């Protein structure tokens, strides 16, 4: 058992993604039924690397969206009804939706849009630098097409989605040096010229289709989103669906044309520079390789049938390891460690002879494979040690795996020694050294694990122990390198030989290392929650496992059984040999050792068939749907299936139609999914008969455009653009871009830029660039558009307009002044030369700005909000409601003004107090400028000059709270305090009716602070009705669940309304703190994280949309009174170090508190007098304490 266990753990690890085809024997072993569950377990989520108790793959390889077939793949067994394999020709490009751990990928062939399963070992990742932008654009395009609803005219309306593809093609042509028709390369090479032309025609055709879509959209939009069961609308929908399908196919064709164009370019290059062996793509390849993933073959030209597969076999590293997650999620240190070690092992493995042309169980290969595995385990282990994030179980597992794989390696060394006719002391010494090192490592680990006290936390492995483990592990690496090198020398001397490695011998060594006690630890210590975290994953695996293992034993219709055996147990086919390029039948050894056969023969033999060093991968998991009744795909119900697809991306996998089907069913190629493929493998692959009825035939798609249209596209290609430097999310919203790309979008010629984008840009540009760099970028835009005469004028006008808007409404002299000289210069020279009028006007503006104080054009109140404010305002001619002020109240105010005693605020009508408070606050609120809310100015600035109005707002609110508390605590009589509380509850209620949530928050806060809440006797005098009112009001402004209630109220609140500004200040703070300021594109470009600024702007707009004054009559005297009281409260607050503590002391004096109160209420103690005395000290004697007084 132990043997098996130990071995399995080493098998299921995907070490470093250095599985070359020859080392995959170990994986093949795990296909045996009893290990299938662990085999299917997906890689742990990057966040919790110890999730499954086993070592998780520490280098999460990049998921490759595109693969290119290196060999033709025309399986004979496609006949199976439940499985669709995708025939490939060498050179085909495939868009990958998911990759199963067994190495089969679900993909769409771009050449004809068909979808099915394909073996990844026939392919290599495809992402050459030249094509990267175009490929990225296709992914965006695909995401957009599948995710947007048809009525989303905003997306389809402005054709933004086309820009990426155009920019991608342009980038390709530019990199290839073929941007213009006249380029020397094209002049010289006619094939290249024709290929370029056909690429451009394809693009033209796509652009035209998208215009048709736009038109169809418009007519549909006229219908106005009618009900779905409307037959006419259905027809329209269908027409649009067809258009979308057509566009997707055309986009695919652009890619394939682009690929063949690039192939020609490379061919051309290699002809001219025969010595050039590394194409331009090498840089990208290197980067990919660093992430432990596939590397693209150095050069590949399908036209050259002489492509030598064996030279590439090392590049065929396992596509089946490409599980989705992003490498940057990995912690840096572990990644660095990993890279180093993987580099070592890769180098070593390249020393070995390429595998595909040789027998597979050569000892040298086994040696290399074992060495790779061992090193990668050690690498993972060391990487984790340096992270200091070590739990005991994970440590145990890591050590166990390292030692087991080390054991494997030792077995190989022993075999070589035994086989060798000559005795090599060097090898034996090295072997002994290595053996001792591994023993050291294991015993170090055991000491660490056993010395830990049972009660200690998982993380409590002290640095000292870490050091020891680190030492032992690095010792292992060294000794192993030595040992392997010596062994390799020996092999060279005695000649390589084949050897069938049984599995039985491996575990013995593992036992030698004393692993038994380590083995138990993970099982008992594995915290429960980790399992829970995995629940969803294991559920899916569990549900698969029984069927997989029991299926063969169930007697079934032979035909069905046959089809299942194909679909269940389908290893990846062997790579074709150079002499037989066309793959016919999986070679005999693979067939005979296929796990299904092994399972039939008994598990034990399955285990022993590990020995096979065949270069294939574990079986294709259950693709058949027949054994899963619940998940059956019924071809008769495509529409129902379509609906279902909405709620589960996993299920959508089972519903795959051909690519021409509605794009919305494709939810599988999801780079964010952390369980990429296991879940998807229940998929039934598409039924060939299920192609959509209107799928346009491909031949009909081939373009035949009039020459003028091609010329248009030629012109378009000449437009310099930065569109490929923009980043969009899956909803098609802009989330990032470089400054030139953002500026280009700001001044786009084809479409009016979206209002939110423009306002965000103006508001936040100082956070991501300087005024000078913005000016330069705008001037650059003005310049380069000159290369495209047909759009130069509109773009230049837009550029002028951006300057104009900036100077008129968004100029901030203190920060923007350095740009002024540049702008003047630009206006005087370049702009005036091209557009004299605007040049003149911009110059005038610049002059005005230089002397003006504040912005030239006053900022429109709520200009940022798109809500039609005027609609919601009360009609201007209606008089505001009359103030509710009695004659005597007015008189009291007047006498106060002339030096008399101040009347109490509580003597007035609560409604009027609420109104005047609201007016006063709104005046401050309306003065807040968007700039004050940027970059957390209100917290940073101590002097109050940077965000004066925000500061005034918070000061007002705080003073109001203190004033409320003061008006309650100032009374010694419990009754008067209760009256004050009651009055403030009423005022708060009036504030809520006025939607003044700022004052409401302040008053409610005052009434619920501890100092007030604890006044039990006072509260006893407040009626239940009032208390309930207060409870209701408190619920509105309570902070719980992130101000859920208040947010809901504000969400559709039409002005006038005064929100609680504190909530927005917190939001702004967290938008800033929680989002990085840059993001990295898939092509490695660092761009501005515009999404962050967009969020900031949205938040500010949401706040400032309430900057609409109330139409209420001012009562200046009452406002003066309130101001005076507020000032007094503010001064009182400043006078003491801690106003809240002072209030609390005062409160204690008034009502001394529970201890005494209890004594008071409890006559048994007989200390009534003392208690009474203590709480009456500060009060007066007429308090009615012995009975519940009548409620006020």
């Amino acid at each position, binding site marked *: 058992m132990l043997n098996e266990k130990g071995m399995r753990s080493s098998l299921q690890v995907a070490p470093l993604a250095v599985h070359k085809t020859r080392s995959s024997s170990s994986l093949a072993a795990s296909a045996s039924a009893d290990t299938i569950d662990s085999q299917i377990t997906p890689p742990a989520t990057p966040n919790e690397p110890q999730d499954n108790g086993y070592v998780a793959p520490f280098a999460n390889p990049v998921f490759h969206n595109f693969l290119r077939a290196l060999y033709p793949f025309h399986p004979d067994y496609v006949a199976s009804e439940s499985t669709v394999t995708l025939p490939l020709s060498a050179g085909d490009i495939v868009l990958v939706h998911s990759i199963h751990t067994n190495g089969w990928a679900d993909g769409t062939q771009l050449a004809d849009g068909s979808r099915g399963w394909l073996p990844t070992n026939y392919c290599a990742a495809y992402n050459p630098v030249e094509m990267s932008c175009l490929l990225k654009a296709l992914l965006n395009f695909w995401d957009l097409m599948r995710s947007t609803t048809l009525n989303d005219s905003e997306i389809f309306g402005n054709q933004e989605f086309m820009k990426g593809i155009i920019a991608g093609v342009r980038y390709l042509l530019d990199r290839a040096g073929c941007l213009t028709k006249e380029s020397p390369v094209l002049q010289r090479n006619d094939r290249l010229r024709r290929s370029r032309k056909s690429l451009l025609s394809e693009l033209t055709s796509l652009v035209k289709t998208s215009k048709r879509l736009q038109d169809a959209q418009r007519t549909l939009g006229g219908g106005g989103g009618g009900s779905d069961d409307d037959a006419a609308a259905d027809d329209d929908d269908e027409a649009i669906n067809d258009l979308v399908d057509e566009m997707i196919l055309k986009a695919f064709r652009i890619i394939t044309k682009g690929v063949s164009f690039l192939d020609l370019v490379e061919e051309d290059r290699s002809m001219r520079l025969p010595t050039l062996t590394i194409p331009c793509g090498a840089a990208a390849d290197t980067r990919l390789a660093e992430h432990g993933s596939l590397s693209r073959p150095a050069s590949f030209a399908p036209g050259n049938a002489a492509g030598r597969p064996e030279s590439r076999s090392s590049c065929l590293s396992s596509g089946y390891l490409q599980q989705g997650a992003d490498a940057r999620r990995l912690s840096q240190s572990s990644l660095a460690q990993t890279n180093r070690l993987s580099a070592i092992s890769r180098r070593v493995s390249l020393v070995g002879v390429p595998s595909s042309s040789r027998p597979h169980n050569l000892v040298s290969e086994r040696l290399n494979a074992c060495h790779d595995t061992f090193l990668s385990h050690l690498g993972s282990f060391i990487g984790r040690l340096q992270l200091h994030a070590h739990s005991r179980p994970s440590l145990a597992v890591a050590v166990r795996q390292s030692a087991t794989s080390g054991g494997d390696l030792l077995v190989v060394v022993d075999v070589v020694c035994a086989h060798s006719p000559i005795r090599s002391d060097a090898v034996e010494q090295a072997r002994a050294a290595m053996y001792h090192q591994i023993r050291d490592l294991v015993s170090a680990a055991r000491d660490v694990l056993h010395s830990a006290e049972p009660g200690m936390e998982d993380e409590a492995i002290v640095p000292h122990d870490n050091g020891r483990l680190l030492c032992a592990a690095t010792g292992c690496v060294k000794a192993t390198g030595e040992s392997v090198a010596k062994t390799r020398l020996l092999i060279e001397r005695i000649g390589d030989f084949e050897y069938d490695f049984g599995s039985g011998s491996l575990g013995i060594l593992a036992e030698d290392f004393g692993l038994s006690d380590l083995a138990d630890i993970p099982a008992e210590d594995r915290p429960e929650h980790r399992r829970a975290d995995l629940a969803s994953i294991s559920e899916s695996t569990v549900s698969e496992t029984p069927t997989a293992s029991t299926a063969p034993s169930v007697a079934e219709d032979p035909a069905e059984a046959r089809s299942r055996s194909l679909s269940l147990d389908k290893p990846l086919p062997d790579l074709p040999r150079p002499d037989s390029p066309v793959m016919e039948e999986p070679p005999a050894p693979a067939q005979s050792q296929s796990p299904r056969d092994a399972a039939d023969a008994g598990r034990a033999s399955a285990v022993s068939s590990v020995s096979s060093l065949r270069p294939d991968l574990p079986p294709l998991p259950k693709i058949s749907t027949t054994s899963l009744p619940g998940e059956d795909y019924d071809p008769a119900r495509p529409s129902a299936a379509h609906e279902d697809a909405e709620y589960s991306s996993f299920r959508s996998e089972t519903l795959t139609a051909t690519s021409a089907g509605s794009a919305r069913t494709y939810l599988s190629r999801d780079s964010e999914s952390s369980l990429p493929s296991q879940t998807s493998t229940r998929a039934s692959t598409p039924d060939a008969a299920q192609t959509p009825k209107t799928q346009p035939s491909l031949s009909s798609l081939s373009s035949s455009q009039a020459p003028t249209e091609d010329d248009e596209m030629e012109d378009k290609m000449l437009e310099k653009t930065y569109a490929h430097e923009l980043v969009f999310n899956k909803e098609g919203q802009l989330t990032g871009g470089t400054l030139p790309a953002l500026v280009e979008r700001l001044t786009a010629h084809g479409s009016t830029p979206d209002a939110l984008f423009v306002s965000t840009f103006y508001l936040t540009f100082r956070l991501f660039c300087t005024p000078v760099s913005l000016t330069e970028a705008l001037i650059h835009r003005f310049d380069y558009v000159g290369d495209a005469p047909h759009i130069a004028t509109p773009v230049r006008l837009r550029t002028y307009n951006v300057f104009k808007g900036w100077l008129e409404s968004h100029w901030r002299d203190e920060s923007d002044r350095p740009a002024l000289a540049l702008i003047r210069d630009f206006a005087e020279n370049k702009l005036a030369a091209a557009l004299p009028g605007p040049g003149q006007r911009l110059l005038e503006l610049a002059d005005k700005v230089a002397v003006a104080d504040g912005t030239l054009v006053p900022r429109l109140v709520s200009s940022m909000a798109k809500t039609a404010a005027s609609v919601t305002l009360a009609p201007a001619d209606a008089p505001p409601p009359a103030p509710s002020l009695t004659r005597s109240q007015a008189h009291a105010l007047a006498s106060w003004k002339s030096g008399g005693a101040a009347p109490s605020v509580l003597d007035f009508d609560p409604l009027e107090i609420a109104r005047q408070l609201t007016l006063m606050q709104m005046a401050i609120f309306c003065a807040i400028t968007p700039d004050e809310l940027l970059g957390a100015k209100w917290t940073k600035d101590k002097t109050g000059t940077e965000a004066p109005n925000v*500061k005034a707002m*918070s000061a007002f609110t*705080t003073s109001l*709270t203190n004033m409320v508390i003061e008006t309650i605590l100032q009374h010694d009589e419990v009754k008067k305090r209760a009256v004050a509380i009651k009055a403030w509850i009423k005022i708060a209620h009036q504030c809520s009716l006025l939607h003044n949530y700022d004052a409401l928050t302040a008053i409610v*806060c005052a009434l619920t602070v501890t*100092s007030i809440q604890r006044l039990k006797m006072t509260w006893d005098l407040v009626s239940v009705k009032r208390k309930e009112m207060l409870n209701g009001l408190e619920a509105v402004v309570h902070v719980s669940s992130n101000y859920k209630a208040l947010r809901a109220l504000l969400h559709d609140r039409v002005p006038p309304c005064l929100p609680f500004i504190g909530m927005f200040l917190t939001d702004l703070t967290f*938008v800033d703190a929680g989002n990085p300021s840059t993001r990295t594109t898939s092509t490695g470009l660092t761009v501005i994280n515009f999404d962050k600024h967009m969020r900031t702007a949205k*938040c500010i707009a949401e706040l400032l949309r309430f900057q609409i004054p109330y139409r209420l009559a001012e009562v200046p005297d009452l406002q003066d009174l309130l101001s005076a009281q507020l000032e007094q409260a503010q001064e009182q607050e400043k006078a003491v170090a801690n106003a*809240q*503590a002072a209030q609390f002391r005062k409160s204690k004096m008034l009502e001394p508190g529970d201890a005494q109160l209890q004594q008071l209420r409890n006559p048994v103690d007989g200390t009534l007098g003392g208690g009474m005395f203590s709480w009456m000290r500060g009060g007066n004697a007429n308090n009615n304490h012995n009975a519940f007084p009548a409620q006020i």
Partner: protein
Amino acid sequence: MPRSSHQPCREFNVVVLGAGGVGKSCLTAQFVHNEWIESYDPTIEDSYRKIVAVDGRQVVLEILDTAGTEQFVAMRDLYMKTGQGFLLVFSISSKASFDELEGLRDDIIRIKDDEDIPIVIVGNKADLEDQRAVDRAKAFSLSQRWNAPYYEASARTRTNVDEAFIHLCRQLLQREDSQDDGAAGPSRPDDSTSRRRRRRRRKEKCPIL
């Protein structure tokens, strides 16, 4: 007392406090933010909720961090009232922010009426060692005086962020366990136990929450 994992999830309210500019919002954002979510939206209901596993037990933490509203001094009382555990944050590069902790703790004890409310002290910006203005020894002595754990954390390098929150969580769990076991909590003086119970009883009556 060991608990099985199928017990219902416990929920705790944790309040993050500290002077403005000590980076507490970064600390909180780092803790609650799922790394694989590309952008963080603080305006949704569960922006500040996080399920954590502490010693194998699932706990829902609702974090109240009112960063940005430090000037609303009067509100602090209200925020504190909602908390069951507190993370007191200062910046190791600012002596003033360290000195503010004392007052914060006094307020917490006054408002919660509880001497041994769970508190964790966090010295943030530990990556700015060259700008250190608060001696580690000083922070440790405060930690000992309060009997509250001290972490030096860095939101920027994501050091000790989870650790600090989880430690607080562990304290909350232990406290709840000992309360569930009734007055049997061995180490607690009777006085504080009864006091805490009283507080709890009062809380039930409290019209708020």
